[in-house]
């Protein structure tokens, strides 16, 4: 896709996440937009994009979601915590890599960072889009943050 924007659009980010889910998690349980879940964030996975556009793409998983998604990706219910971190890291790597392809380049994609719990974003970032979702009834969310200069423009 060669179309680029000043900032990632929510519809595009959601479409990318849906494509990743269909390909690697399964097409029998779609990602569905949902109300924000008040529960805990059990895992968060994020990649950063640095260069002509600077930002971060993050996936947040509610209690039990990351384990269920990982089991579907691996085709097995027998997993270690490292397997879960590996699987959700790869998911955000794919969504983030495709977001990077939508944005002006050149830029570099980081390796994924996976945390137990919510990821903290720095003060010089702004959440530019977020979609709360449910997969197989389990809560998760995808969001994009952009780094901004002090004058408010994208750095």
């Amino acid at each position, binding site marked *: 896709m*060669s179309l680029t924007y000043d900032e990632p659009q929510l519809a595009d980010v959601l479409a990318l996440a849906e*494509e*990743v889910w*269909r*390909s*690697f998690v399964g097409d029998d349980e779609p990602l569905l937009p949902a109300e924000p879940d008040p529960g805990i964030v059990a895992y968060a996975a994020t990649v950063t994009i640095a260069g002509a556009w600077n930002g971060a793409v993050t996936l947040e998983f509610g209690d039990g979601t990351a384990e269920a998604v*990982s089991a579907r*990706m*691996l*085709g097995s219910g027998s997993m270690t915590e490292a*397997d879960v971190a*590996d*699987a959700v*890291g*790869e998911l955000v*790597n*794919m969504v*983030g*890599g*495709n977001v*990077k*392809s939508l944005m002006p*380049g*050149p830029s570099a*994609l*980081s*390796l994924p960072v996976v945390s137990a719990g919510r990821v903290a974003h720095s003060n010089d970032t702004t959440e530019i889009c977020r979609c709360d979702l449910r997969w197989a009834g389990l809560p998760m969310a995808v969001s994009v943050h952009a780094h901004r200069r002090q004058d408010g423009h994208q750095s």
Partner: protein
Amino acid sequence: MKILIADDSRVMRQIVIRTLRQAGFAGHDIVEAGNGRELVDLARAESPDLVLSDWNMPEMNGIDALATLRGSGDATPFGFVTSEGSDDMRARAEAAGALFLIAKPFTPEVFAEAIGHILVG
């Protein structure tokens, strides 16, 4: 035939192996590398017929691993399987000597089209 799969994600290596099977390429010997440096070492030790490599990996990334192989005269067929499929990345891959770049997420059909002619015989 022997296929070397390099990706720092064990989950993704398993998905690539599963997709190869779904694309009709079951029964080949598989060798796995967790980063570009292991890729180079295993390519030299195992003499694979095809290398499928991620781009972003710790220790050594895929494009540097390809450059290292080509710089030492190793012409093993090499393709990327990566989350970044921009025109720029495809051009860089081709210039470095890669035969194809498969963007994640992928389907068995994409695998079949990209590597079918390489794994014949």
